[in-house]
């Protein structure tokens, strides 16, 4: 077998194993929470009788191990069950919200990733001079703002000062693509501001690192322009660290943006998860947790594999 293929297969197998381990951890973690769903649902109205009735009805009296395997089996067959709180089909609810999550993350990534890399290249080209300082200064200050503060700024600027966007960013099936883009404009701006610095700084650092090499000096001596040197000779060798940072940020865009979702009322997975956590709706919490874990594992795996492919020593083994 080609060593790269072997490496890739290994990574995928490892990823799946990790996912299984995560599923067990999620289940255990949720089990360890104080209180249970029945109590959370009834709240102020929890009398011992009502509690017992509800626990019985929800099957919360069965042993944990049985419930774990029932759950795992359900996932493999695509059946995530029904939400304990309102009886809605979980797979269906998640499906639409996952789409929204990916849409928002996708929009932010399409802008943020090329922009960050471009800014990183420019900053590296002018390292230590004013363009570098301006770019670093601005991106580092935007990443230092808590997301909700950035969100409030953006709301103030674009709905009050220059009223061109709407503060509430809900998207629905049936909206045109442009209407959707218009709706998510504000959260996308916030997310771009938040993720830009990390990727930009990593691109800059990786390029500067490569710039010390002898072959770059050779390229410069050949008379190539500085931008060509960076783009053609330095960048390909800096891809691996950049890709892994990009993937980390993509993962963040998918799983970590609940604050932004809440501020803009965006109907995606994060808010859905938080709502169900407060109601102790275990099946939903577990399902969403597993999806988030899968996204993380998949993106990290992709970063690994791209890193391997970008390495000529691994691509062309002797």
């Amino acid at each position, binding site marked *: 077998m080609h060593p790269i293929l072997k490496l890739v297969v290994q990574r995928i197998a490892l990823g799946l194993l990790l996912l299984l381990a995560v599923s067990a951890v999620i289940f255990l973690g949720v089990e360890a929470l*104080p*209180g249970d769903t029945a*109590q*959370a*649902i*009834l*709240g*102020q*109205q*929890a*009398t011992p*009788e*009502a509690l017992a*009735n*509800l626990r019985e*009805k929800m099957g919360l009296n069965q042993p944990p191990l049985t419930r774990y395997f029932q759950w795992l089996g359900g996932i493999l067959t695509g059946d995530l069950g029904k*939400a304990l*709180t*309102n*009886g*809605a089909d979980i797979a269906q*609810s998640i499906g639409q919200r996952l789409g929204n999550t990916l849409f928002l993350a996708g929009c932010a990534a399409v802008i943020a990733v090329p922009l960050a890399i471009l800014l990183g290249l420019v900053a590296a080209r002018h390292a230590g001079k004013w363009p570098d300082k301006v770019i670093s200064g601005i991106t580092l200050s935007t990443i230092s703002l808590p997301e909700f503060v950035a969100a*409030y700024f953006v*709301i*103030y600027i674009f*709905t*009050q000062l220059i*009223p061109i966007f*709407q*503060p*509430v960013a*809900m998207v*629905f099936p049936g909206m045109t693509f442009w209407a959707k883009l218009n709706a998510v404009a504000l959260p996308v701006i916030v997310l771009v501001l938040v993720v830009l610095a990390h990727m930009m700084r990593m691109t800059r650092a990786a390029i500067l690192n490569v710039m010390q090499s002898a072959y770059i000096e050779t390229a410069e001596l050949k008379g190539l322009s500085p931008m060509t040197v960076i783009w053609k000779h330095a960048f390909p060798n800096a891809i691996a660290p950049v890709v892994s940072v990009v993937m980390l940020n993509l993962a963040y865009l998918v799983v970590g943006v609940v604050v932004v979702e*809440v*501020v*803009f*009322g965006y*109907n995606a997975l994060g*808010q*859905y998860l938080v*709502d*169900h956590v*407060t*109601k102790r*709706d275990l099946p939903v919490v577990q399902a969403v947790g597993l999806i988030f874990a899968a996204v993380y594992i998949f993106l990290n795996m992709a970063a690994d594999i791209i890193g391997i492919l970008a390495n000529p020593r691994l691509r062309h083994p002797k």
Partner: protein
Amino acid sequence: MDDKHKQLDWMVAQAKAGRMTRREFVGRTTALGVSAGLASALFGKAAQAQEAKKGGVIRIGMQGGESTNSLDPALAASEVPFQVNMTWGELLCDVKADGTIDLRIAEEISSSPDATEWKFKIRQGVEYHGGGTVTAEDVVATLKRHTDEKAQSGALGIVQGIADMKAEGDMVTLKLNAANADLPFLMADYHLMIQPGGGVDNPAAGIGAGPYSVVINEPGVRHTFKKHANYFDSTIGHADEIEILVINDNTARTAALQSGQVHMINRVDPKIVELLKGVPGVQIKAVAGRGHYVFIMHVDKAPFDNNDLRMALKLAINRQEMVDKVLGGLGSRGNDFPINAAYPLFEDKFEQREYDAAKAAEYYAKSGHDGSPIVLATAPGAFPGAVDAANLFAASANAAGIPLQVKLEPDDGYWSNVWNVAPFCASYWGGRPVQDQMYTTAYLSTAEWNDTKFKNAKFDELLMAARGELDEAKRKGMYTEMAQILRDEGGLILPMFNDFVSGVSDTVGGWVDDPNGELMNGRAQIKCWLNA
């Protein structure tokens, strides 16, 4: 002269928008030299011009919705499901803003002289959204469903008091376990939406006889409705469509109102009310209601089993400071019983209890408390500003020499681990339409939600007697006596009644202040219209 005309025009416009009372209007126009008679006539004309306009889409941005919400009216517990159910559902009868009964599906209500048997005559031809009309059998089936413990209905306590229900022709007869002169008010409970077949097969179908039918139900995101063409009451349901958007974030909700994305919002943060008042196109509606914020002591647990200590604490709280600082002035002081002028049969004869450090210290010394810290549990979610309120309370009590200490609890699990468990904690009540219901829910010895563990035989006896008493003067006297007992002996410290504070766009017409609940008791979207 020109300038005067402009001013007059402006005032007429204000009156049209319902932003000026007659007295204010007449006062200000006569100052311009207009005769009082003409001014009054002008006002009448302006107010008349406030005629319902049909059509359009009313959008409301609301706090209090989660993706866990259901359309099953039995399960409604937060603001959004409440508002949503009011849009598609219809009740037997409702409570008007002035506290009288509004006949809905019932077109006639009568009771036996002893108030133990009630008859509701069902209006003919009230159509459901899916076709078919409301029958007496549906009404009985609906009430029966709420009596089933498995339905987990929030109205269980209400329907449990009904011994027998019967449907004959267009008449529903309810026989009660004990007399209750307030039964129609109880039937106006927001859980008791009449559903076809009682909603037994699919309680969360969202099919009812209300003015709008459900189009999209995405819990925690949005709920959309379209006009039910055959709705029986033409004075309700002016817009073609209704959209309720769940916007839990305070800033986003306010921005949505300012930018015109929604026409109304609930729960305006008291801290920003002053700022919002200056914003063009937006009106703040602060409506005095029955909701109140409380600190509750378990009267059966030490040290709160000592009435002198309870009295010391009641005197050690600065109520005016709470209203000013926690409610931003949008509320009124409480007097340690849960009833205010928004209730029918309220007698305003009680002296306002004030902060009195000296007297509090006196009671505290008399109680013989050992000086160990008195712990007050609170959480941000106990009520808006609960942590600030608890700290203010501790400061004023400490000044009187009472060692009150605040313990901050997490929001998560507060209602299961702290409320009704800790002997002294912060909480809130939304109020009920009538005094009987409020007392029965939380102060009767046997009440499930008796969160002060208050047990007083005389109080219980008065409550039962008042229920069957059809003579209003006598009933009023009984309620006053009960308030006195609770105020002087109860475990309830009630520093303030909070206003419902909503934000409404200038384009909305038909707003009426309703003390029964926020956003016109959940009905702003079906009773208001859009002028623009």
